[in-house]
């Protein structure tokens, strides 16, 4: 497995960690038929085969309404990647599977977080959001909701820095990914 050892950071909450320099996650971009129950079939396969999923994101594809794309971040320490792909491929509704190694992919994730803020924290949190290229998307009397999008490790950082504040609610989307483009083309 090829990997850029710098791309992942150990974080709390059971998300990917490096062990011996190699990321233990892999990204599968799975094209599925847009049919009832497809997500249950994919999720059910992972649970009954004992494969761990870190995150999963689903959306219809732009190209063809018959298909959706599921981006799955897989823990490759629970099962060899090959085995995960082969078992997934057996699902009749799975059309194709692209394997994206973290080094060869662009990965993005989005977080929405609501923070309880007093008068002093308010500007600090807004400033912090600014540093991370985020936006304040909702403002309450003593709360702010911030949105940050970016590389998952950036979201991890942001989440880490928020720890000193009173986080009321936090929701991450799970990552989506596409292959990195080759500059020569």
């Amino acid at each position, binding site marked *: 497995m090829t990997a850029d050892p710098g791309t992942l950071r150990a974080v709390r909450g059971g998300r990917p960690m490096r062990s011996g320099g190699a990321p233990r996650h892999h990204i599968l971009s799975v094209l599925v038929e847009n049919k009832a*129950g497809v997500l249950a*079939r994919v999720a059910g396969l992972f649970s*009954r085969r004992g494969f761990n999923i870190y995150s999963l994101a689903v959306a219809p594809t732009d190209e063809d309404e018959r298909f959706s794309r599921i981006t799955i971040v897989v823990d490759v320490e629970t099962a060899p990647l090959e*085995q995960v792909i082969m*078992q997934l*491929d057996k699902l*009749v509704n799975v*059309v*194709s599977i692209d394997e994206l190694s973290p080094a060869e992919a662009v990965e993005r994730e989005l977080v929405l977080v609501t923070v309880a803020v007093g008068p002093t924290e308010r500007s600090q949190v807004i400033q912090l959001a600014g540093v991370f290229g985020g936006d304040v998307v909702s403002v309450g009397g003593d709360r702010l909701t911030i949105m940050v999008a970016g590389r998952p490790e950036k979201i991890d950082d942001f989440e880490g820095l928020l720890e000193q504040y009173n986080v009321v609610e936090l929701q991450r989307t799970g990552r989506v990914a596409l292959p990195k483009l080759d500059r020569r083309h």
Partner: protein
Amino acid sequence: MKLTGAQALIKSLEMQGVDVMFGLPGGAILPVYDPIIDSSIRHILVRHEQGAGHMAEGYAMATGRPGVAMVTSGPGATNIVTPLANAYMDSTPLIVVSGQVATPSIGTDAFQECDITGVTMGITKHNWLIKDVADIPRVVAAAFHVATTGRPGPVLVDLPKDISNQPMEWYWPETIDDLDLPGYHPVTLGDPVLVGQAAELIASAHRPVLYVGGGVLKARAAEALRALADRTGIPVVTTLMARGAFPDSHPQALGMPGMHGHYTAVTAMQRSDLLINLGARFDDRVTGNVRTFAPEAKVIHVDIDPAELGKVRMPDVGIAGDCRQVIEELLLAMDAHGDAPVVQDLEPWWHQIRQWQERFPLHYSDDDGRAIKPQSVVEQLRDAAPPDTIVVAGVGQHQMWASQFWTFDSPYTWVNSGGAGTMGFAVPASIGAKVGRPDRTVWAIDGDGCFQMTAQELVTASAEQIPVKIAILNNAYLGMVRQWQEMFYEERYSEVYLSPDLPDYVKWAEAMGCVGIRAETPEDVGPAIEKANSIDDRPVVVDFRTDAFEKVFPMVPAGASNDDIVVHPDQAAQR
């Protein structure tokens, strides 16, 4: 042509060449039962839907054609969950059509509603809930295609009652492209480069073993296998699912590997330097402790399911493909080698194997000759049976004795529940096998415990005049569990005693329209078998009162290494 959904369903089954189906009606499937009256398809009315499923499996295993079962919604559908799971484990092509509540009621906990596509998602190759009447022919055709191609397996088609009643314009999908299966592309042909590598590995091995699994039968590759064995002189083991794929009477046949396999089959694999796995899956009942399994062996693994390659044991050469095609490719690759030998001199290996065979043949002791030995019943059934008799087994000690002591000389003569180990399989599966092969004698070798789980299907057999023969090896115990309690739980017998005469199997058989026969002493066995074999117009049940204390040997205790195989106590001194 305008048809109702129900008529379209039956017509689709006819288009698929279905000649028989097994089922039991109810509210949600009622519309589909009406056109059955006018159909060419024979419907066999079962007494319990589990029976329908196992009958369809027995039919499929004996004929190679997919088995079809039909049930109503809710409890009808859940009653056939066990056969679906069983067919999934043993890769049997099984098509189940279930009724479903009307679409507006789905999700409302309507009467007899059950999310059966949800329930069976993990135990079917695929399933469909039909929501548009126009989909019926396409989905039925797709269901048969998926069930029978690639690695075969069970599928379920769930049909809501309102859809059955709606009108549709009949059509039939002409090609595979019309089936709307963009994600389904089973492989069949092996990669020639890998086949070449396999031929090279075979040419350099000194202790090769052909490890033959059920995939060889699914691929109808018995002849190709025979050619490969004859060409190479390599010893052959046939797993529980592959009994019959290679003749037991062939000098290269070592018998069955696994927990209760032949000593020589187990040990030859263990000492092998090359396992040529054809359509087997390194099941834990074969490998014992995987870490100590065949430690010196390189592995060639041929399987139509690419996910099997490396699932348990990493192959040196893994070939995704149909066993028949890959074996034929392999033989061609060997031909291309010209005069170069296709194998090493295997004489030293055979010398070693012959020694094991001489020292540790299958063995049981006749003791004082007072009790009926179950192994002897199997031998006498075997010796009195016409050629190509189909043998069906339940699950337990009797199953292992049947697989050990029968001599399987042709494919599709052994029907049993391997991967799931489903007690109650034998009676209905034997009925299905007999329906599919009415020309053959069908003997079920069943346990007293198993028999009690599905015996009611003998009513079906009597009513439909399906003359199967059932041999109950009545040891008055859940014998296999008793054996484990004796060996591993200090003879503390917990909930395994059944009684030899409650129920009275002869009276029960007679009540179900069968002939009932009892054999109480070794002298009774021969005449009882002779009488059973002479009856051909009704099902027969023979209650053999066998020795309750017999154990199955050899045995590799669960989780132990195959090196620690336990032989019969009479042979223990020789180890």
